[in-house]
């Protein structure tokens, strides 16, 4: 009986792993396809489609845009999130429960609706579509996340270190920069990397709020109109590689927090 369960378990796990990995393996495999269609039989290997992607200025500038928007918007999210988390954790404010709820509220609303709201507002205010508008939207979705992560990590032992610094005569800004930020570094990094991955992969807000200069997911979307295309496979595989790097960095900061 036990052996049977074990065997069935292995079989089932293998099937699920197969299901989960099937599209990704197919994507990467056919990005190495030598001929023009990413379909079986596999005729590769060749790197010509990676070459084509890297020499496509629209794709490379979209890639630069994506990295720019991701890094600036996640820096803004984590700064706003950190300052407010510190404020709420260290001081008693009237209605603070309600205000904290307000900051985390965007987490419960779909990106499509956040993007639509901004589109309507900017349209009324006469703000043109641009990467900046999209970046503003990215801060809206990532600020609550950074706030929640950092706020949950503000513990009592940090209060004591801060108090000690104040007793020794440090002004508030020094306490903040020299004590709180370094102590909270793992949570801050976690916030930065998570925001960067989300911004890097975000599609619908960028799609609604940018026009000519746009981000990589939107440019990939435009590529899809040409049907199945090994170039799309190649750019998709590259995006996967960048995401994995971000995730590994995120894992490392988490591990560091655990051992610290």
């Amino acid at each position, binding site marked *: 009986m036990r052996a049977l369960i*074990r065997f069935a*378990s292995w079989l*089932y*796990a293998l099937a699920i792993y197969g*299901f*989960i*990995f*099937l*599209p*990704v393996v*197919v*994507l990467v495999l*056919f990005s190495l396809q030598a001929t023009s*269609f990413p*379909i*079986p*039989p596999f005729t590769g290997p060749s790197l010509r489609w990676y070459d084509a992607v890297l020499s496509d200025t629209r794709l490379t500038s979209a890639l630069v845009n994506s990295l720019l928007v991701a890094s600036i918007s996640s820096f803004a999210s984590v700064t*706003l*999130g950190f*300052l*407010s988390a510190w404020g709420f954790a260290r*001081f008693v*404010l009237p209605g603070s429960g309600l*205000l904290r709820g*307000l*900051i985390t*509220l*965007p987490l*419960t*609303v*779909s990106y*499509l609706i956040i993007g*639509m*709201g*901004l589109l*309507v*507002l900017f*349209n*009324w205010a006469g703000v043109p579509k641009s990467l900046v508008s999209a970046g503003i939207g990215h*801060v*809206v979705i990532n600020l609550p996340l950074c*706030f929640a992560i950092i706020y949950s990590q503000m513990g009592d032992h940090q209060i004591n270190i801060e108090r000690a610094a*104040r007793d020794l005569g440090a002004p*508030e800004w020094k306490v903040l920069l020299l004590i709180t930020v370094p102590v909270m570094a793992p949570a801050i990094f976690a916030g930065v990397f998570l925001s960067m991955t989300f911004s890097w*992969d975000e*599609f619908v807000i960028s799609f*609604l709020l940018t026009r000519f200069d746009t981000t990589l*997911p939107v440019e*990939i*979307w435009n590529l*899809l109109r040409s049907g*199945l295309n090994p170039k799309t*496979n190649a*750019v*998709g595989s590259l*995006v*996967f590689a960048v*995401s*994995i790097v971000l*995730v590994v960095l995120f894992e490392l900061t988490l591990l560091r927090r655990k051992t610290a």
Partner: protein
Amino acid sequence: MSSAGNNGRALPWALVTPALGWTLLFFVLPFIAMGLSSLTVHEGGSFTLSNYSQFFTNPSYWQAMVNSLQVTAIVTVVSVLLAYPFAWILAEQVPERWQRLALMLAVLPFWTSYVVRSYSWLLVLAQNGVINRALTGSALITEPLQLANTRFATVTGFVHFFVMLLTLTIFANLKQLSPSYRKAAADLGAGPVRTFLHVVLPLTLPGIMVGAFLTFVLCIGDYITPQILGGNNELLMPQLVMMQIGRRGDFPLASALAIILMAVVTVAYLACARWLKIERA
């Protein structure tokens, strides 16, 4: 200058105001703008409820909501049914030291671009894609199956995503379960099956409900997967909303449809509130 007391009032507000201001300006205000917009007519000034009444009277809009609810329900049920045994195997059958690696592997494709992930299912499901080639190659079928641009494709793409998500949440839930419950059940004479049905399953139900709710919310609001995999054969709500913006530039109607979509999510939240609260406590 030297103590927090001197600037005791101003400092805390200076810390929280930027974040609050951002949320008010770029989240609450847009939401109000969308609400107001939904009450106006495209290319007209006066206030009206016609955008909302259109939803209830136009059968194709109504159908989009029905499609959305059906697809979301199927996706949620199938994902939970597939993810639960998998999470159980990872938590119970895989040796402790391999669990973290096994879990990381299981969610690795999570980190491909969302747009790319949907596209790569097209490679698998297309007329001359991997599955059809494999089936015709092995002479199981003679004509390729129509897999892409169907509801089946949309559901497959969604299930792929949510199996990963639910595996994470259910796995965490199973690991939190104290082993003493299972020992107690065994001591009292319950076999593995009874222990699972009467002890493990009920105790993990709140976690499943939270995961299912998350699946519901993310699935019903998603535009990418149905657009890439489902094609335009049957419209889901997010596609309908985007169509009003993209093809017709009708912001008021799009706003009304988006608000209706949000209302449905809120109702779902209230329906699950009991389970969601248990989890938070």
